[in-house]
């Protein structure tokens, strides 16, 4: 190919300007605008429908969760604490007390005082429940320390 053939711009420059009117039809923009508006409305409708669907799903989930919560039996912290205390009593008393166990025992004694005071003033179950829950947790911790001590003494 010769050098003058290598470029379309050069060729186009040697030819007369295009005779055809390269102008889009006058109604093209109104058509584009109409399609765009139509699509926007469709999207809005779809979003509304999807939003409605999501709302219904959330509502259904919330309803199920609330129903489940109401249906789920509440933990009887008092009974749990008493059961743990029985387990603790059944364990051998360690020769030397662990600092963690001492801490738990001291908090237990303080908590027992609070519990007694609550019963004395005729506290409602919803006020007593957190105290029994805390007692249950402390007994659980104490039980773990004692188990660890038993294991260590066997080794």
């Amino acid at each position, binding site marked *: 190919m010769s050098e003058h053939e290598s470029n379309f711009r050069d*060729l186009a420059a040697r030819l007369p300007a295009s005779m055809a009117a390269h*102008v889009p039809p006058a109604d*093209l923009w109104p058509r584009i605008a109409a*399609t*765009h*508006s139509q699509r*926007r409305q469709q999207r809005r409708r779809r979003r509304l429908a999807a939003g409605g669907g999501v709302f219904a799903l959330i509502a259904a989930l919330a309803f199920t969760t609330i129903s489940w919560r109401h249906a789920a039996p509440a933990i009887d912290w008092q009974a749990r604490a008493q059961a743990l205390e029985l387990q603790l009593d059944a364990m051998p008393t360690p020769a030397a007390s662990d600092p963690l166990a001492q801490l738990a025992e001291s908090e237990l004694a303080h908590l027992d005082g609070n519990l007694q005071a609550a019963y004395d003033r005729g506290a409602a179950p919803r006020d007593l429940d957190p105290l029994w829950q805390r007692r249950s947790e402390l007994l659980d911790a104490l039980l773990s320390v004692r188990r660890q001590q038993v294991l260590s003494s066997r080794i």
Partner: protein
Amino acid sequence: MTLARAQRGDMAAFEEIYRRYGRACFQLTLRLTGQRQAAEDLVHEAFLKMMDTIVSYRGEAPFGAWFKRLTANVGIDWLRRQRHAADTGAEAMFEQTAAADPDPAGLVDADSLLAHLPPRARAIVVLHELEGYTHAELAALFGQSESYSKSILARALKRLHALAATAASTSRVAL
């Protein structure tokens, strides 16, 4: 200012963009397709696409260049959808159109010369020679190698020069 309004979905701003770029967009699609109706459809498609994606335009390139590229991509997608522009080798592509002997009287300007190229060759000439696409970019756009794009371009330019020479000699005879 107009772009910011367009990014908020303001129809008046879109109309302003159309007034400014609609003609250039149409000329590009017309050159790519060689068909007025197809060119209109592609302008329609390119503007709708622009209106949907203008939110993502961050101003890294001038808006005109960004929109031109979007239009070119719409044109290439159209070419891919055309059965007659299906992937064929350079040889076969030009053989298919060689059979149709154009009327030299119709070869009056560059655009009418372009109309006598196979669709994909026409797109490569327009994008490379007029829109500044590199062979690497064209290769990626058409899913071909760079040498494919170079080969099509070389053959297309040869064909265009031959057509121009035919037209020139005919007009001389006529004179």
